[in-house]
Every structure is written in structure tokens, then in C-alpha cells.
């Protein structure tokens, strides 16, 4: 970008990059290390970076002691339901938003930016009251409902962008060839939209999986708690020996998001859209 830098310039760049790698990476290494340390090494005065007797005991303990297994299952259910529902609801609307300009559509897209402004605490009290009125307070269904609505503005924004990227000519060509509107959608639009649908589903899955505030306030029964809430409760328990299971639980909580991020990157760069345009 800056042409050929001098030798010292290069060296400085590598020093800076190393600094970043340490800042970004070391906390993660510490988490990994803590998760695999047996209790005796955790309470030792000067802990080592690499556990001398690595163990998976912490993972077992995390699941048996604090119902983290139950919580992980809750999180999985809630996040999957949120992802599927968000896509189903957003799909028709984003098609309409991309293909027809309406005042309503403009307002809906403007809401995306606006909705970022509001502190959750302003929304949570009325939402709490509404959910209680319709009997959905303290249920997973209520939580899913909130997550879908919360993911929707961005999902609409993202999906309509994907629809816009599908050349209108492809749809027109298909309908000239005698395909009905539904056939055009099924044969042309949906296959090309697959990466967008995957991306949208991933986005809503991750935002539900990671969400803490609504889950903390709306769900009171411990058996219904999602993983972030269960982990946060676990933090409150004092004692150095607890750090192992806590680290193990944290690693497991990160796993789905990491996998999904990896999948998403591949799907998005698969270039199926570029190929379709050229063909």
C-alpha cells in the first residue's frame, strides 16, 4: 500500500504486528490454559502458562455442577428458533424492500439505524410488561420473540442487499421463458439467495446465543436460563478452584459462534453470485 518500505520500516511493522498478536492472543491462551488446569494448579501461587497435567475434568465439572449443560441446551433451542423464525419472517419483506420502492420500506430501513440508538433499559420495562400480560414472561417463547424482533431490522437490511445483488435480468429472462412468479422465486431467486439466507440465519443465531440483558431480566427460573446468564451466575461464586470450570464453560459457549463465523466466511466468499452474473 505504501510502496516499498525501508528495512527499519519493515522491522517496526513487525514489532507492531507482534504487539497486536500478543494483545489479542494472550488472553485467549490464558483462557485455554485455565480450562485445562487441574484444581491443584489453579490454586497454586504462581500459575504457569502451560498446564503441567492437563485435564478435561473442568469440562465435566462445568456440566455437572452448575447446570451449564441444561443452559447450553436452552441457548441452542432459543438461538435456533430465533434464526429460523427471523429468516422466515424477513425473507418476503426483504424481497419487497429490494424490488419495490415504497415509503414503508424506506421507513423500515431507517428504523435499523434508529434502533441502534436506544438503550435497552428503555425498551425492557414495557416489553417485560407486555410479555407478562400475554403470559409469555419467563418463557423461552417470549425470549425468542424478542430476539427475532431485535434481529429483524438488521436482517432485513442485510437480506434486501443480497436480493438487490441478484440481477433483475435473471428473473426477467426466466419469466420470459414462461416460468411463473413462484417458479422464478424457487428456481432463480432462492438458490442465488442461499448465501444471504445463511448469513442472515447466522447473524440472528449468534446475536441470540450471545445475548445477555434480555435473558437476564425476562427469564427468572434457573432451569430456563440461557448459557450467558448461567455463566454470569457462576462468576458470582467465589474461590480460585472455580476458575477451571468457569473457563471450560466459557470455551464451550464460544464454540458455536466460532464455527458459525468460519462457515459464514466460506459461504460469503464462495462466489456463487459472481458466477451467476457472468453465466
Amino acid at each position, binding site marked *: *500500500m505504501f*510502496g516499498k518500505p525501508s528495512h527499519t520500516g519493515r522491522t517496526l511493522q513487525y514489532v507492531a504486528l507482534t504487539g497486536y498478536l500478543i494483545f489479542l492472543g*494472550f488472553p485467549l491462551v490464558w483462557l485455554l490454559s485455565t480450562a485445562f488446569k487441574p484444581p491443584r494448579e489453579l490454586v497454586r501461587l504462581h500459575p504457569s502458562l502451560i498446564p503441567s497435567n492437563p485435564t478435561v475434568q473442568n469440562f465435566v465439572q462445568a456440566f455437572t455442577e452448575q447446570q451449564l449443560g441444561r443452559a447450553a441446551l436452552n441457548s441452542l433451542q432459543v438461538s435456533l428458533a430465533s434464526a429460523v423464525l427471523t429468516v422466515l419472517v424477513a425473507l418476503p419483506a426483504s424481497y419487497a424492500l429490494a424490488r419495490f420502492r415504497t415509503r414503508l*420500506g424506506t421507513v423500515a430501513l431507517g428504523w435499523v439505524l434508529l434502533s441502534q440508538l436506544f438503550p435497552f433499559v*428503555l425498551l*425492557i420495562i*414495557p416489553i417485560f410488561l407486555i410479555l407478562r400480560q400475554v403470559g409469555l414472561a419467563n418463557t423461552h417463547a417470549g425470549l425468542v420473540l424478542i430476539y427475532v424482533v431485535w434481529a429483524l*431490522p438488521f436482517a432485513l437490511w442485510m437480506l434486501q442487499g443480497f436480493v438487490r445483488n441478484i440481477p433483475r435480468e435473471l428473473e426477467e429472462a426466466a419469466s420470459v421463458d414462461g416460468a411463473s412468479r413462484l417458479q422464478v422465486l424457487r428456481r432463480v431467486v432462492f438458490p442465488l439467495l442461499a448465501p444471504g439466507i445463511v448469513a442472515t440465519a447466522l447473524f440472528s443465531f449468534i446475536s441470540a446465543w450471545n445475548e*445477555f440483558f434480555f435473558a437476564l431480566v425476562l427469564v427468572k427460573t434457573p432451569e430456563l436460563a440461557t448459557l450467558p446468564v448461567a455463566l454470569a451466575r457462576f462468576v458470582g461464586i467465589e474461590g480460585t478452584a472455580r476458575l477451571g470450570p468457569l*473457563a471450560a464453560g466459557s470455551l464451550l459457549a464460544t464454540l458455536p459462534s466460532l464455527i458459525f463465523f468460519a462457515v459464514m466466511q466460506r459461504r460469503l466468499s464462495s462466489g456463487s453470485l459472481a458466477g451467476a452474473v457472468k453465466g
Partner: protein
Amino acid sequence: MTTVAERPDVARADGPRRARSQSDRLGIYLLLLPSLLPIVVLSVFPLVRGIYLGFTDARAGRNVEISFTGLENYRELLGDELFWNSFKIGLLWAVGVTVLQFVLALGLALLLNQQLRFRGLARVLSVVPWAMPPVVVGILWKLVYHPDAGLLNEFFYRVGADGLRTNWLGDFSTALPAVIIVGVWAGMPQTTVVLLAGLQGVPRELHEAAAVDGASTWHRFRNVTLPAIAPVVVAITSLDFIWNFNSFGLVYVLTAGGPGGKTMLPMLFAYEEAFRYGNYGYAAALGNVMVVIIVALLAVYLRRRLREAN
């Protein structure tokens, strides 16, 4: 769906609006309805109601009708030392995190935009914190800052700087800087990725032309790169600021606002008021004040930035 415009000229987004028939319009609204209805019921309506609650004496578990109290909550807020404390902490936190995050992310993005070794590793690493739930980021840094078994204290011990060992999250003077660093660590990846995308959109020819003209690296950065990515910079820093000002989970796990309110962000304060003491109206009023503050600050910032960019 078959009711929606069959004619290509009608279907064009930039096509003439008058050409659309009544049934077309109905079809479009039917497509939009499943999305817009839930948004209105569970986001627009609660928002309006939340704003209204800020002007009432609503409390948890009280059967009396809530009554409109006008500016009473705001008068109380102005005299509430805890509110002013949280407001001050919130600003320090939001500005601190946003600025540090931006500077570091820009540096990293510039590095990642070059042909360097370990670039792939850095790209992967810079995405990991993004994928982590905020609660997990909090837990991870609790392990790093832990007074006895923490990475940071152990590092100082190993390098012979034992005097620097401290209870980072429990000490009055270090708690806020410590949580700000966590905020930067957690938010930097997203900012880096956005800035990197912006950098990759800068035409290479501009740089080469400037280099031929003998412009120094700094001059090329100042006069070519920065103006080109200005819109991205404005967008990401304003969004970062809003997100940071409204953040909750990370600091809730790290310190829960302690020690002695030193990390009591506005959202944590509002959460305590609403769900610990049941002061719904008061907490909603605080939310209203936060929205007004954010809008005001953004308006000032955006006006200045946009004028600079032009």
C-alpha cells in the same frame, strides 16, 4: 405473490410510482407485514411506552394506577449524585473505548492491508473476540485480572516488577482503566474489519501517483488514505460510541459497577434502579436522558466530521 407486479417496468425500484396498481400495492404490503407487525408491536410500541413511562411514577409490584408526574423524575435525576456519577463514568468509558479502539484498529487495519507474514494469524485472531459472547469476554478478562491466579499479575511477577501487582478490578484507581481495556479488546475486531474493508476500497493508483510525485508515507496517509476512508471512519466511530455508551453485559460480569461505583455505567445504574429497586419510571426517565444525550453528542460530532470531509 403472483399479485405483485408482473410487468418489468412496474417492478423496477426506480420505476414510476404511479404505474403501480392497487393490487400491486396490496401485494407489497402483504410481503412486508410479517416483518413490520412484530417490529411495531415489540419495538416501536414499547419504545413509545418507555418514553411515556419516563414521565410517570411507575413502580414494580404496585397495584395503584400509574400517574403522570411530568418532569418529576428528571428533577430527581438532576439532584441524584449516583446518576451524575454514572453519567460521568459512562462518558469516560464510551469516549475512552471508542477512541482507543479506533486508533488501535486503524493501526492494525493498515498493517493487515500490507504484505506481511502472520497476516493470516492476525486476521483470525482479530475475529475471535468478536465471536465471543460479551459475558465470556468478561469472564476471560476476569481470569487475566485475577489478583492471585491472573495472567497480568503473574507477568509482572515474572519480569520482576512485583510492585505493579494489584487487584486490577477491585482497586479504585485501576478499575475503570481496566474495564476500558477490555472494552477495546472486545470491540477492536469489528472496527478493524470495517476499516480494513474501507482501506481495500482505496484505489491503488492514487497512492502510486502520489508516490511518484514524491509524497512521504505520512503525507500519502493524510491526503490520500484518510479522506478516502472518512465516511467509513465517521460511520464506525459513531456506531461504536452508541454501542459503548449503551453497553451492559461486559462490565456487569467484570465488576457489576464496583468498586464503589467506579465502573457504574448508566445502563448498570438503570438496571439496578429498575430491577433491584423496582423504580420503572425513574429508570425509563434515565433511558430518555441517555437517548437525548446520544443524539445531541452525535449531532455535534457528525456535523463537524461531515464538514471536515467536504
